[in-house]
């Protein structure tokens, strides 16, 4: 199977999944309305209440990178539920009986998550700008922040691809990702500064790659509030590098795992 075939097959599968973003009501809401809702809720509910030293505006800006991070990670979970659904409906059986590149189904699916997350980031950024968020760095650094978030979320998509091929139903994927991802995104510097967490959670948060993703994009957007002490732990001092390293490791482990699982899967 040539690389060209693999790429064009993945493109066809990605196209199929992207078409569905506008056709499936759940996905459309997930992709457009809920990001708007998140930004507004966090900005006005938390932003107003937890304004550091009375500076609601600064906290609101601090929050944005965290909301971006959490939302793109949830965006990555679409892969899990969608693959479980395809497996249940027999669509995977059909794909596996076609002379297409075996890698194309999962690649096409995870790439569709990236497309979805691009839409999510655009919608959230526009909403953020409306409520007063500003990028206080250069365009290049901001693009770097977006790219880093997309790469990290793409790696998570591959974990979810593996999970989606493994579990018995789409509902299980949704529940499992909720139970795992919520704590992961909250025990981190996504929404609160590190020093507000109790001791043991601080350590977890320091090493949690969700923290470094939020920290790195926050730095790249120039949204670290003035007077914030520099991070003391290595992962947060090298947040972008640490996030990329995690992404590479996750991809190195889960791309082969998920593909192996795909080749074994038949509808249940």
């Amino acid at each position, binding site marked *: *199977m040539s690389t060209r*075939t693999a790429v*064009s*097959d993945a493109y*066809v*599968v990605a*196209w*199929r999944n992207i*078409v*569905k973003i506008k*056709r*499936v009501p759940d996905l459309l809401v997930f992709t457009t309305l809920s990001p708007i809702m998140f930004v507004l809720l966090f900005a006005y509910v938390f932003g107003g209440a937890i304004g550091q030293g009375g500076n609601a505006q600064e906290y609101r800006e601090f929050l944005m990178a965290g909301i971006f991070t959490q939302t793109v990670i949830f965006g990555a979970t679409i892969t899990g539920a969608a693959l479980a659904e395809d497996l*249940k*409906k*027999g*669509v995977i*059986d*059909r*794909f*596996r*009986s*076609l*002379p*297409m590149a075996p890698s*194309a189904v999962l690649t096409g699916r995870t790439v569709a998550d990236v497309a979805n997350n691009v839409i999510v980031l655009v919608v959230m950024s526009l909403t953020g700008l409306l409520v007063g968020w500003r990028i206080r760095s250069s365009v290049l650094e901001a693009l770097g922040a977006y790219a880093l978030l997309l790469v990290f979320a793409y790696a998570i998509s591959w974990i979810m691809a593996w999970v989606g091929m493994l579990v018995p139903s789409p509902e299980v994927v949704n529940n499992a990702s909720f139970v795992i991802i919520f704590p992961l995104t909250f025990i981190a510097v996504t929404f609160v500064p590190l020093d507000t967490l109790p001791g043991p959670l601080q350590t977890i948060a320091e090493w949690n790659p969700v923290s470094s993703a939020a920290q790195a994009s926050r730095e790249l957007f120039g949204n670290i509030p003035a007077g914030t002490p520099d991070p003391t732990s290595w992962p947060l001092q090298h947040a972008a590098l640490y996030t990329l390293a995690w992404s590479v490791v996750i991809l190195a482990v889960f791309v082969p795992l998920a593909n192996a699982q795909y080749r074994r899967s*038949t*509808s*249940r």
Partner: protein
Amino acid sequence: MESTLGVRARGLVKKYGDVVALDGIDLDVPRGTVLALLGPNGAGKTTTVRILTTLLRADSGTAEVAGVDVRRDPAGVRRNIGLSGQYAAVDEYLTGFENLVMIGRLYHLGKKRSEERARELLADFRLDEAADRPTRTYSGGMRRRLDLAGALVADAPVLFLDEPTTGLDPRGRTDMWDVIRSLVARGTTLLLTTQYLEEADLLADDIVVIDKGRIIAHGTADELKAEVGGVRLEVVARDEARLGDVERALADVGSGVPRVDRDTRTVAVPVDTGVQALTAAVRLLDDQGVALDDVGLRRPTLDDVFLSLTGHAAEKATEKEDAR
């Protein structure tokens, strides 16, 4: 050998833990013929299809499809097959047209040819009016037709249809039979699974009956019926008290031992001489003044075949078993 067989399988075994799904299946489907794999739920029909279509690996045994070994060259097999599964595997948020174009492109027909082929098939399957609607608006029968169309996109020489009519209403089923018959007329090699006995009788050249992962019978519909015995004479007495007289009369005219079913007051006996035996029996019973509710000659159905082979009736598909 390979050149004349569309499908050839020898000794296929598949276990799931302790459960033996297939216990040594041999199949030969000559090119351009239709084989029906007939059996109840859980007999191993779908497992067989999955092994032959490279979705599953057999624990042991060999199989060739279109002359290509399924284990050594699964990609080569996939270029030569079309599969329509038990559950209509169409993407419900894509239109019928988009579904078929996607499949065509994944068969590497190219964008233009895929689109042409999609239009052709949609017209053939009377789906052209619904072509540009998402398939979730389709009826069950329409989805099945689209799924089958998907299996035909590449005009593959060997086709696998796994329970193509399960869950369809009678109208949808006869529609599907028409479609399948037209395929067969074009010379496609077809392996079809079904739990409907009349479907196998109607569509297949050859029938393999499987139960609990084993082949329990193989032959044409006529051969299988002959195996169960030829024509039977059945007499239903009005009065249960006279069943003994009926039994004696049928023993005289029949070619075997009569079977008596007291609940239905029916006595049946195999006969060689057909109508002569029937008239002789009626005369005999009339002379003795035995009143009859019914009398007639019965040809065996595939239901009888199944009953005599397995000792239990073929399970009818129920909605509950279909829903997953």
